[in-house]
């Protein structure tokens, strides 16, 4: 009797697993979806990067986009060959805010910047290369520049800093600077754990359950050692690792500027704000959340901290916050369910950045 009940329970669990898997694959597209994960491949130096020639259609409740990676491993619909005469190349390094899977390629600020710079005509043709990769921070951007983007023969290298989390990510990724990068799949053997890992990656249900387990274990760690308030980059009195992350970020950006300079390219640093720095309602919610954990949120602290940390680097800095703020009131510049720019946000950044590049004579 018990065995029959257990079998029935297993059968129901398996049937529902299949139903949830189908439902999630049909309607629940997210970055956990296998099709999206297929955009990435392991890299022995950076950890991972975009897979050359990968393509996918990314569908969420808020947007639908086609993503194509070119043969060189950046989001572009054209290959990058030797630089023709009269072409001025701009390489934009950064994270998901640069890659921008939430909008079509033609709507990204990189492509809009290219169009804006070329609008006046003239003998020089600009080509802006979107070298952003989801999840990158200053450390990965430096390594990616050395490994891949330097070969694109840039005349101008734009390093985009997301002030919201780049300091924290720099601390986490710092070991990669010492050659410690180990892509998740590098050491794949036919061990049980690696087979299990591959299985989990292929199933959206299992991926979500894995995320829940990670969340619970994080909470367990937080219970052992009480959690600190979130958004430390914006904290009135941030944790010591923020200063450490700012220093690592500064060293990475300086290395990019120096190495680009050695190759004859100029540099520009772009500071990209978090959504709540622009969106008052989002700020209200986060302020409340941070205060509920005993912290105090200073709205523009991360921008000011990066601005100061990078001030010693001999490259102009462009802060995207003022033009984004100046666009209000008006349609949203950030998506509601992600922290990424809407097409309007991309337009605003591209227009202001183009004006800055002209003004600086870059």
């Amino acid at each position: 009797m018990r065995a029959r009940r257990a079998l029935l329970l297993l059968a129901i669990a398996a049937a529902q697993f299949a139903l949830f898997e189908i439902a999630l694959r049909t309607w629940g597209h997210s970055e956990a979806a296998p099709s999206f994960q297929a955009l990435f491949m392991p890299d022995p130096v950076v950890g991972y990067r975009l897979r050359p020639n990968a393509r996918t259609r990314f569908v969420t409740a808020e947007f639908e986009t086609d993503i194509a990676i070119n043969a060189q491993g950046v989001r572009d619909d054209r290959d990058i060959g030797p630089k023709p005469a009269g072409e001025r190349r701009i390489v934009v390094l950064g994270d998901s805010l640069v890659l921008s899977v939430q909008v079509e390629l033609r709507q990204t600020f990189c492509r809009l910047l290219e169009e804006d710079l070329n609008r006046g005509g003239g003998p020089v043709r600009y080509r802006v290369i979107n070298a952003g990769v989801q999840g990158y921070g200053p450390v990965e951007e430096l390594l990616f520049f050395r490994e891949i983007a330097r070969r694109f023969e840039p005349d101008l290298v734009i390093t985009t800093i997301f002030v919201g989390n780049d300091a924290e990510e720099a601390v986490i990724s710092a070991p990669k600077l010492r050659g410690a990068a180990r892509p998740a799949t590098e050491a794949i053997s036919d061990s049980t754990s690696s087979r299990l890992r591959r299985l989990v990656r292929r199933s959206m249900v299992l991926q979500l359950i894995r995320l829940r387990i990670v969340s619970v274990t994080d909470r367990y760690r937080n219970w052992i050692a009480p959690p600190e308030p979130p958004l430390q980059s914006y904290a009135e009195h941030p944790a010591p690792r923020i200063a450490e992350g700012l220093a690592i970020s500064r060293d990475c950006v300086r290395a990019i500027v120096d190495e680009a300079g050695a190759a004859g390219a100029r540099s520009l640093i772009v500071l990209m704000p978090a959504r709540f720095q622009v969106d008052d309602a989002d700020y209200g919610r986060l302020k409340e959340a941070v205060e509920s954990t005993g912290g105090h949120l200073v709205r523009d602290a991360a921008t000011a901290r990066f601005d100061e940390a990078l001030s010693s680097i001999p490259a102009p800095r462009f802060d995207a916050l003022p033009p984004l703020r100046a666009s209000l009131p008006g349609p949203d510049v950030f998506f509601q369910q992600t922290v990424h720019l809407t097409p309007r946000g991309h337009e605003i950044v591209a227009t202001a950045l183009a004006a800055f590049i002209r003004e600086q004579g870059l």
Partner: protein
Amino acid sequence: MVFNSLHFLWFFLVVYALYRLLPAVLPVERAHRAQNWLLLVASYYFYAAWDYRFLALLAGSTIVDYTCGRILGSLQEQRVRRRVMWLSLGFNLSMLGFFKYFNFFADNLAALFAAAGWHADFVTLRVLLPIGISFYTFVTMSYVIDVYRREIAPTRNLVDFAVFVAYFPHLVAGPILRATALLPQIQRPRRISAEQMREGLWLIAWGFFQKIFVADNLAPLASHVFTPGAQATGVNVLLGVYAFAFQIYGDFAGYSNIARGTSKLMGIELIENFRFPYLVLTPQAFWRHWHISLSTWLRDYLYISLGGNRGGEARTRRNLLITMLLGGLWHGAAWTFVLWGLYQGVLLILYRPYESAFATLQERRVSWLPPSGGSVLRVVAWFVMFHLTCYGWLIFRAPSLHAIGSLTASLFGNFAPRTIDVTGLLAPLLLYTVPLLVVHLVEAHADDVLIVPRLRIGVRYTIYVATLYLIFLFGNFGGSDFIYFQF
């Protein structure tokens, strides 16, 4: 320590293991005494996990009311008994008034003085609110009143009484238990049946579903509309209010279910606190189905003490208004809660003449669903009542009186249906409420909140497994404390 924390999981596993072990190693009566000591220590630890400094208040309230109960039991003269009862009530109400309402009255007094041109910066004391104080003071007050009314005999055992007050499943957010219901269960050895285990586990799972899947996922949707500075059109305000209606229901009913479930596992039955409150047709029925332990407390100890419906229609209306105003204030020291209480009182008064007309419909509350079909009138009555309840939640959740005005203005003056936020509000609202409503309607159809563990095995397992999948796949594991802790 919240129910949805690992701290509670470890705490409960340890306490429960010891609780079940004791009867196995000790004779019945000694095991029973040891279990009560265990429950007392565990409950005080549970409370100390919030803030150990307020343990003295809990212990003080327990000792004062235990002593008053003993004295009341030994006295015969009614005049003296009344004084003792008022002594106890005065102690509890002073404690509640000071810790819960001092800041509110001080701030309003200061504002009043400032309006008159006087500086009132002498009011600088900031009083912390001890968690659960509204619940345990009501529990102890009901005990003393019941002893005074000779409805129960005073207990002679301080440990039993302390467990009754501090019993951890109901300590910080109810249900507000009566001595008549809980004390006898504490005083006698307990046996735990297989049915209690089955029902307890289901209630815990369902409570977590209501909290983690429903309430914590709907919270950001409600915040999206209610956060100061948010400028939503009427249609989106309406969706935000719906989200809050199900958030607060999921949150509070979830807590009550986890409390009932954990208590069932220990062989102690707690009262049902919610019974399909959004399916009712009148405000009176709403208060018989929403936070039942509070509304019955207010009815038995406040409304009836004020005279209830004896003494004519005008006095009944006055009593209803006073009861609901104080009920609103019980929820929190803010004018929005006072206004919410007033609103509920007015609704009760307005519906009063039609209560008998609604009575037949109300009895068939759950039958308006297919296949029994339903009259248009019943559906209209439900629709109106549900939206009146939702407007009450708008008042309740609004961050200020000014916000109530602006949200109401959006709702009625700028509805703009074309601006409906499908992806940000409507779709997630449906995703997180439809599974709740499906089970809710199954329970309502059977008029039994514990029907699921009694369904056919295939159906039961399907619901169990779906509940667990929904919690694990879509639950918000970074959720907050339960809303009612602040009350």
